[in-house]
């Protein structure tokens, strides 16, 4: 297990990039490169990262980056991986880096296909729970009750369980991560790098612009998402489910912070009613029952 100080000093996301102030995905990109170094081909569909690069002829990325169509990250990565294999190159890690819309909505077909074909790459969904690049519209990963520009009174449906959808593909590695737990994320990326086949990491990456909190609180929001049990850190390695710290200590409901603490800090949840909160708490309990059973089985 790596420590904070052991993270390499090299930066492959260069300063002066075009992310919003306090951008969770930007923090995560830095961590991604600290995990993998520079021998990476990044495949990026339309998403905030398209903009983070800055405009031609400049880019803030120090690794090769193929911008590709919104719904096609899995397919583009498949082509890159096949070509590398034909060129007998085996020291480059191919990473698909896509947002929640590009993963769970428009891109789910290409991702599912790539996973079913056992394409050797890491797919990271950086989830800021809405279409951030186009100004915060609802996605399949927007949580219940959250305001977006297309759900002005709050989303009426629940968030898709994307990592479990990927686990159903029987790929060798599925993990969740959060920007607020950098070492957990780095370790998971490094573990994924050494596994053959499709590896899926679902990364909750808080977004001050869309979630409506102070830009300084990005890490705090991520931490609360995990501490309240709303977002759970786990990994499924060859079908074996394992809760990771600190989520592994939250099976006991009394250890979890009240979900209200998470909602209170974010403007996007301002329309939540007391009933909504109770409903969400019940869902969290139900979900945790499932996680507990899975953890016990393993």
């Amino acid at each position, binding site marked *: 297990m790596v420590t904070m100080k052991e993270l390499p000093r090299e930066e492959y996301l*260069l300063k002066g990039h075009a992310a919003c102030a306090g951008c969770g995905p930007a923090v995560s990109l830095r961590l991604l490169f600290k995990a993998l170094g520079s021998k990476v081909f990044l495949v990026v569909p339309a998403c905030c990262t398209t903009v983070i690069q800055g405009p031609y002829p400049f880019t803030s990325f120090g690794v090769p980056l193929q911008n590709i169509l919104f719904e096609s990250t899995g397919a583009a990565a498949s082509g890159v991986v096949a070509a590398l294999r034909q060129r007998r190159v085996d020291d480059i890690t191919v990473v698909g880096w896509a947002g929640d819309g590009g993963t769970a909505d428009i891109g789910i077909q290409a991702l599912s296909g790539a996973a079913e074909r056992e394409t050797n790459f890491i797919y990271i969904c950086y989830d800021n729970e809405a279409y951030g690049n186009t100004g915060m519209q609802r996605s399949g990963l927007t949580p219940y009750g959250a305001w977006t520009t297309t759900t002005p009174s709050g989303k009426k449906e629940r968030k898709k369980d994307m990592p479990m959808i990927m686990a159903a593909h029987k790929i060798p590695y599925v993990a969740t991560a959060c920007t607020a737990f950098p070492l957990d994320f780095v370790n998971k990326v490094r573990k994924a790098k050494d596994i053959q086949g499709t590896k899926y990491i679902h990364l909750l990456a808080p977004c001050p612009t869309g979630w409506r909190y102070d830009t300084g609180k990005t890490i705090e929001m991520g931490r609360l998402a995990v501490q309240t049990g709303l977002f759970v850190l786990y990994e499924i390695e060859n079908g074996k489910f394992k809760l990771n710290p600190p989520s592994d200590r939250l099976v006991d409901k009394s250890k979890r912070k009240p979900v209200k603490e998470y909602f209170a800090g974010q403007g996007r949840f301002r329309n939540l009613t007391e009933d909504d909160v109770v409903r969400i708490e019940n869902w969290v309990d139900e979900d945790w029952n499932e996680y507990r059973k899975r953890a016990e089985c393993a």
Partner: protein
Amino acid sequence: MVAMPKKRRDLPVTPLSYPTVGSMGKTGSWRTFRPEVNYSKCTRCVLCWVFCPDAVITRQEDDSPKIDYDYCKGCGICANECPVKAIIMVREEE
């Protein structure tokens, strides 16, 4: 540093963009508040460096942070995350 093309003949066959510090310019101008480090309080835990979204904090020899104000957007994550409150956000001077 990548040179800005001037004429059509300077262009590559398709848009290829090269790694550049300041691809979006000097983003320090986006700032309203600036982080200031109190080095006597700093414990060299490097958390501010880890969590900086803008890669503007470098770890000095002794692991204390150095902030590049040319590019720091002033988001305040470093101040918020510093366990000993060694970084505070102060209003930019006119």
